[in-house]
């Protein structure tokens, strides 16, 4: 109940928000919203001792039990980390937003989206049912979409929102497919049960595709290369949103998912390589691209991409611990998992801080373009301090938490490279690439600080007089800044109470706590990681200074063919190609449509008849009189003549001949009622033709090109031949008698000796009844068609 309450509180509050908003007004609504994560955070903190004690809080309620979808909630160590992030950062972001957003904005919408997101995110991390998880997963994409497009009148916002939505939802679909495969293999949607079936599932051939599909979902959400492209565009969102969703929480849903499934897939070689390679590539590519950005938020976006890659690669390294066949000490590899979680926490603090700093700059100066900024240090000393703390932490410098986690990353990469758990060889590249990416990271961190706060002020390029942010706005980043430093000094508290329980969830096979929770120390002697850090600083400074000179590298062709341009091109060419293709066959000409229909008939039905050996024509002529034959000839003659006649009256007359001839065939076939009806109907139809001819012009000869005529002719002949072939075959098919022998008792059964009429009026009276309705509809339809004419010049667009 408790856990369910945690998930649903944001939704309930969101539902109540409009009413509350009216009640308490714009000024207080932010506080109302902030209360939600704050309360939840407190509640979660209260749970920590239990969770740290290895307890799992869970609850399950039936939702769609027949489909195996339950409202199953499970709070364990892994979920807890993320939930703390969600509520903790959520509180700070809400606080920050109160000052950041002007009351002129539609705050109601904003906060509703924010609460929706919060609830969805909590749902993701607490769900113990795949479908429930998936539901919340998609909801995070949707609320993110709405938040990115908060300023929906901007083109860029809409573009960014759509891009984020399309890519993450695509990943979501893939995730769904993967989940369905898991269900098929395990017979349950319960995550804990599935994970418990690790050994059973390992033998299933479908486990590999399921794994890849789930990874695709995780990668799109956690912006792994090449699906990272939506994140920079998502920066169109208000900065609190960027801080919250697009760095601290939502993008980490993929991380959560990977961590969640580590006990299931961990140890599989595919899993290891996918995560490691995707992570490492993303790390490098993100950092490389971050350096060239002029927009501070874009820079942070790429930096986030890069660091999510780093976390992902760490999870990959760590998964080796679960492999039975991997070389080396599992505990050593598991440390990488620990590092991932630790890095993730730290990232949330310093990146959240930096986003808020950038937000302040943007808010007070009116721009975040580093080409227009500079020298703000003297105007905004507090903000500058925060920026330094955040940047240096991100760059991996002491005494900030980023230093610890960066060192751990280097350590893990080195361990993998030396341990070679799957003997691939490529592991050697991991520390090298990681190090290079760190150099880039150092550079862009320097850029943030230097280009924004140091150097000359450029008053001509900014609209406002620079000044420090209001105090309220500084509170949230201040708390984060304090955390950045605090964690550096007391990392093991977090390691023991927060990360430790999560590690137990991720690596259930490794039971010894010592294996799972390494002691974090700021100073661990001069080892390779430390050396690497020095290298980073040295090379980073050098490159920063010479940045102007090697910047041209971004204009080298392969770097310009970004995934982004591919996405854009795909949409554009997709649209153009769709139009071309669709216009090609959607001609609007009835002739073409009939051609399609009959071609389809010829190909499928004809194919089925002739290619499967069904065609066994019955050529037996049966008794046939010369008179019948002559009518066959007459009808054929009249019909064919119809193709050549010049006037519609002649055609109508010939149609009459056909109709009357049909009537005489009905006579031959012992069908007096039919002959009667056919005769009358034919005459009335002819009268109708004549009535309508008054309103229609005489027809002109069909002057279509010969090619068209030939095609038409071939199709027509094909249709005729096929119907005949079918008919002849059906005649030869003599397995069953008709049910209609029964009707020959009609006098006894229904009191009529005209069998046909007994069928029409009794046995199948329902047909007759409906046929009457059809006739009636047609009659009244004709009336309305004539009586209800649109006024002159009225077009077909709805409205009066």
């Amino acid at each position: 109940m408790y856990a369910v309450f945690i998930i649903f509180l944001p939704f309930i509050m969101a539902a109540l928000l409009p009413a509350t908003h009216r009640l308490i007004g714009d000024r207080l609504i932010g506080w109302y919203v902030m209360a939600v994560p704050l309360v939840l955070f407190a509640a979660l903190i209260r749970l920590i001792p239990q969770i740290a004690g290895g307890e799992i809080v869970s609850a399950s309620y039936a939702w769609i039990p027949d489909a195996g979808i339950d409202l199953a909630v499970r709070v364990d160590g892994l979920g807890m980390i993320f939930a703390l992030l969600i509520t903790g950062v959520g509180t700070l972001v809400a606080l920050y937003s109160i000052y950041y957003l002007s009351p002129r904005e539609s705050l109601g919408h904003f906060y509703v989206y924010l609460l929706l997101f919060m609830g969805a995110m909590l749902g993701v991390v607490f769900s113990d049912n795949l479908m429930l998880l998936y539901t919340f997963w998609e909801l995070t994409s949707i609320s993110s979409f709405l938040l990115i497009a908060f300023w929906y009148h901007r083109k860029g916002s809409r573009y960014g929102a759509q891009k984020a939505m399309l890519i993450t939802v695509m990943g979501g679909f893939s995730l769904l497919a993967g989940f369905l495969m898991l269900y098929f293999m395990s017979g349950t949607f319960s995550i804990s049960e599935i994970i418990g079936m690790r050994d059973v599932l390992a033998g299933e051939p479908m486990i590999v595709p399921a794994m890849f599909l789930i990874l695709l979902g995780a990668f799109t959400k956690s912006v792994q290369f090449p699906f990272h492209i939506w994140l920079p565009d998502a920066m169109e969102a208000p900065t609190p949103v960027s801080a919250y969703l697009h760095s601290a929480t939502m993008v980490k849903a993929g991380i959560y998912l990977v961590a969640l499934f580590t006990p299931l897939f961990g140890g599989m070689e595919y899993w290891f390589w996918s995560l490691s390679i995707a992570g490492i590539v993303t790390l490098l590519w993100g950092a490389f691209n971050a350096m060239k950005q002029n927009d501070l938020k874009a820079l942070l976006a790429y930096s986030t991409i890069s660091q999510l890659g780093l976390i992902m690669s760490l999870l990959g390294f760590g998964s080796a611990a679960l492999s039975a066949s991997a070389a080396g000490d599992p505990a050593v590899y598991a440390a990488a998992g620990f590092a991932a979680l630790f890095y993730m926490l730290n990232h949330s603090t310093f990146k959240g801080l930096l986003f808020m700093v950038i937000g302040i700059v943007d808010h007070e100066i009116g721009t975040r373009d580093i080409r227009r900024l500079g020298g703000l240090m003297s105007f905004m000393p507090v903000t500058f301090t925060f920026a330094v703390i955040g940047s240096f932490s991100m760059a991996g410098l002491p005494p900030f938490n980023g230093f610890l986690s960066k060192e751990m990353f280097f350590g893990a990469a080195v361990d993998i490279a030396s341990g070679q758990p799957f003997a691939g060889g490529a592991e050697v590249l991991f520390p090298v690439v990681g190090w290079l990416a760190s150099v880039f990271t150092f550079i862009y961190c320097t850029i943030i600080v230097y280009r924004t706060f140091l150097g000359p002020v450029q008053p001509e390029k900014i609209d406002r007089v620079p000044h420090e942010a209001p105090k309220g706005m500084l509170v949230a980043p201040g708390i984060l800044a304090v955390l950045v430093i605090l964690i550096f000094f007391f990392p093991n508290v977090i390691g023991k109470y927060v990360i430790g329980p999560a590690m137990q969830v991720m690596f259930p096979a490794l039971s010894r706590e010592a294996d799972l929770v390494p002691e974090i120390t700021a100073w661990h002697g001069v080892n390779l990681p430390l050396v690497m850090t020095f290298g980073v600083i040295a090379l980073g400074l050098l490159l920063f200074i010479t940045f102007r000179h090697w910047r041209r590298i971004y204009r080298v062709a392969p770097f310009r063919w970004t995934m982004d341009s591919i996405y854009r091109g795909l949409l554009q060419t997709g649209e153009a190609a769709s139009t071309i293709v669709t216009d090609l066959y959607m001609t609007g000409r009835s002739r073409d449509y009939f051609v399609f229909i009959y071609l389809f008939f010829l190909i499928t039905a004809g194919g089925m008849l002739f290619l499967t050996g069904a065609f066994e024509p019955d050529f037996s002529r049966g008794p046939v009189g010369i008179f019948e034959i002559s009518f066959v000839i007459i009808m054929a003659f009249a019909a064919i003549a119809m193709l050549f006649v010049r006037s519609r009256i002649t055609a109508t007359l010939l149609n009459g001949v056909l109709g009357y001839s049909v009537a005489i065939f009905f006579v031959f076939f012992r069908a007096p009622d039919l002959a009667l009806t056919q005769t009358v109907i034919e005459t009335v139809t002819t009268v109708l033709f004549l009535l309508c001819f008054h309103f229609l012009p005489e027809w002109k000869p069909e002057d279509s090109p010969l090619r068209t005529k030939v095609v038409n002719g071939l199709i027509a002949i094909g249709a005729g031949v096929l119907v005949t072939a079918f008919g002849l075959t059906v005649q030869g098919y003599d397995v069953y008698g008709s049910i209609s022998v029964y009707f020959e008792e009609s006098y006894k059964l229904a009191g009529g000796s005209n069998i046909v009429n007994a069928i029409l009026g009794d046995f199948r009276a329902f047909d007759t009844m409906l046929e009457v309705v059809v006739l009636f509809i047609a009659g009244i339809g004709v009336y309305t068609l004539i009586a209800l004419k649109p006024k002159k010049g009225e077009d077909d667009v709805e409205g009066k």
Partner: protein
Amino acid sequence: MNNVLVLPMLIPLLTGFVLFFLRPSIRAQKMISILSLLSLVAVSVRILLIIRGEGIIRLDFGGWEPPFGILFVGDSFSALMVLTASVVSALIIAYSFTATERRMENMFFYPFAFFLVAGVNGSFLTGDMFNLFVCFEVMLLASYVLITLGGGKVRLAESMKYIAINVVSSWFFLVALAFLYGTVGTLNMAHISVRVAEVGQGPLLSAISVVFLIVFALKAGLFLYFWLPGSYSSPPGPIAALFAALLTKVGVYALFRTFTLMFYHDEFIIMTIIGTMAVVTLIGGCLGAIAYTDIRQIASYNVIIAVGFMMIGLAIFNEEAFKGSVFYLIHDMVIKALLFLIVGAMVYLTGKTKITGMSGLIRNYPVLGWLLFLTTLGLAGVPPLSGFIGKMYIGLGAVEGGNYFLLFAGFASSLVVLYSMLRIFMNCFWGETIINREDQRPYPARRLIPIALLGILTVGIGVGAQALEPFVSDAARVMANPGLYIDAVLGEVES
């Protein structure tokens, strides 16, 4: 004997005629309509409950035992379809009370709408192939009149094509019936099934089933859908909504009936031919939905995509997939009604039809905008909305059957649906508001109510899927085990 089974068709028919006589008083017409619609829904629920209690029920018209007379068969599948059709058409007709021009109301708009519903419900319930043809015709004739009703140049031109093509498809139906009667000598679906099974279908019967496939594919808009965008995008909102919600679904239903009850023996037809058709339909629908900027066109191509999606369920051919398709059918009726009503409202409010011509409507019409957003998500199959559960089961069926390509095609199409709908939402509702609040045309709340109810329904079906689960499972079970249907109709009858 279950006379209640005829009511879903009889009530709308009788209502149609009564309304006809009430022409002078629109008020009275509306009163009667509401009463009739409510009782229609009540009856449908009742039927569903009876089926749950007693299993498959049937009504032999005139008391003539199958296979000699005509009969209505109520199994969970048909009853679910009837219920959904009734609810959806009730809401659409309720909507049209507020949105139909007076001159159209005078020209028997409501009677024709009721006839359409009658034809649709009859098609769902009938257990006789020829009667299916006749029910189709009731439905089609009503649709012919509705599509032309009060139309100008464009609409009439589209109607002309629509009718001509449907006439040809009715022709194919008769051709197929002729061949069917010439081979198995019976018209009762269950009896056909028995006779077909007895000879193991064989190449000729398979070939004949392909002719039926053409007929129903034309009706459903499966592969042979080119007639659809034009005709669904020209009539006014409520009519288009009726069409989109009901007509193609009847075709889909018929395809399922035909190929699960009668001609289920030929794997090549079901897996290869229908599978290919479904995928091509998906692709074609997707291309169309992206290609055009006319919102009515985009909506129409979405109809096509959904048809392809549901037919994937048939091509996969296992119980899970059937379940998915049934769920999806229910969902699609609701959501397409919703979509077309909203699209109609947008056209009504702006007088424009292209996404390039509208902008920022959310400021003027926030509720409409959010309902469209909800529709967008529902169409994409986002949980917990109505589309999800069907999509999930189809996906599950595909996994179970190993039809990964179909799975891919289906899910990929959802993405295109999302894209095409977001295009509408973002271009029309977002962006700079171009209509001043003073100049905006008011959108009456009473029109919003039916739309909102449909919106609630799409949420309700998704969230409350458990309520439908037993019925849908039963429907799928019958499809997977035609013997259940046959036993209910013929008893332990020999061929």
